């Protein structure tokens, strides 16, 4: 399994999101320049898993999302933590829309 979420970006549209399954997992949102602006998780409290979470973003998109990509995983909590730590390693900060998270309480990876 790749440490980074390297799947191709998908257009952030109702049409593509409505086709998604309700699985649990993690996802990333990106702006028009394909820069990651949010790393999210569809946990077991999500009503319709990844589809439900992304539909929520579709309704209230206030961060100008243009693309998304996702990974189905039951280990959604640890994978979410890992993706945030990788971003932190790459950019020395969190994605813009994750800024409410406390960096100090997060782990530090050195993924090289």
């Amino acid at each position, binding site marked *: 399994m790749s440490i980074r979420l390297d799947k191709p970006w998908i257009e952030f549209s109702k049409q593509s999101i409505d086709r998604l399954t309700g699985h649990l997992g993690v996802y990333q949102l990106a702006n028009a320049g394909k820069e990651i602006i949010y790393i999210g998780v569809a946990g077991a409290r999500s009503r319709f898993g990844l589809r439900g979470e992304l539909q929520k973003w579709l309704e209230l998109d206030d961060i100008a999302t243009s693309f998304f990509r996702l990974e189905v995983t039951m280990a959604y909590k640890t994978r979410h933590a890992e993706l945030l730590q990788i971003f932190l390693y790459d950019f020395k900060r969190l994605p813009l829309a994750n800024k409410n998270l406390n960096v100090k309480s997060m*782990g530090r990876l*050195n993924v090289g």
Partner: protein
Amino acid sequence: MDFTLNEEQTMIVDMVRKFVQQEIIPLEKDLDPDADEVDHDTYVKLVEKTKAMGLYGLDTPPEYGGPDISMVTRTLIAIECSQHRAGLYVPCYNAFGGARQAQLFEATDAQKEKYLYPMLKGEKKVFFGLSEPSGGSDPARAIQTKAVRDGNDHWVLNGTKLWISGADRADYGLVFARTGGEGRSGVTAFIVETDWPGFNVTRVVHTLRSAKYATEIHIENLRVPHENILGEEGGGFAIANDRLARQRVPYAAECLGVAIRAHEMAVEYSKIRETFGATLSSRQGIQWMLVENEIDLRSARLLVLDAAAKCDKGLPFRTESAIAKLVCAENGFRVVDRSMQIHGGLGVAKDLPLERWFREMRIRRIGEGPSEVQKHVIARDIIGASLR
């Protein structure tokens, strides 16, 4: 063996049981089923309550501010603390003080000031770096991380550690490295700070335990001051090993606690769930499963309390703690599995805690020494000495 609880133990068990039922289980209704922590404010409030009970810092010796309780009482608390969804790996979300690196109580005064006391105050986080890709159950032989002396003042460490919990969030940790030849006397324990150059947590290791993860650490030319050796040079194995038998007892008891709760759920459910016009509890097939659960639980309880009682009496209890760990993990897993089966489809859904317990109990048969390693320890003791 008489394990009738005395007055104090009865009071403590009641108190902890109420705490779990009234403070912890209600919280879990709003948490993710795989949650392993509560928010900071909630945690602080929970800790205030365990401190008021006089039970904060369960694994901290009394001389360092922990409660003065026997191993039997500690075991009874572990059985109660774990009876909720996250209870196996984060009993009561660490409101009783969480895991301690007991080896640090062996530190020098200077090391205690710098590392132990901040850990006890909750100011610094620590990890335990023993296991390596070459193995974890036989550290005396498996450790390949090397430490080479560099002048009088420093050591240079190189190697890889695997299955290490909390290393990515820790301020420092204990790293065991080979400073001498093969075997036990060649292993030394070092206190290593995680922001020192050459210390890298390179990946998260995803497992069945999706709430909490292990990590892999690469150590490359990490310079460690000589004063950061914990204990004596070549004394690392003894430091790692001395407290393992002791820690194994509450570890086993937590498996039992979860299994007790799973069994209770199965009994309750079997009385209300009807199939083909009768309750599950009226079916012999289900009754026998419940009976097997009961026997598994009672035998595990006796064995874990026996290990705890021997520890309290100052008697050798390595064999007893290995038996307790083996039986509690194996029996506990079977109990959770049967309870899941009795619940049918609901048993595998995340609506109930059974599926999380099933995944995490599976790991308990491997963690802290797999069942086969426990058998190895027991066999070595009974072949080497009389059963009496």
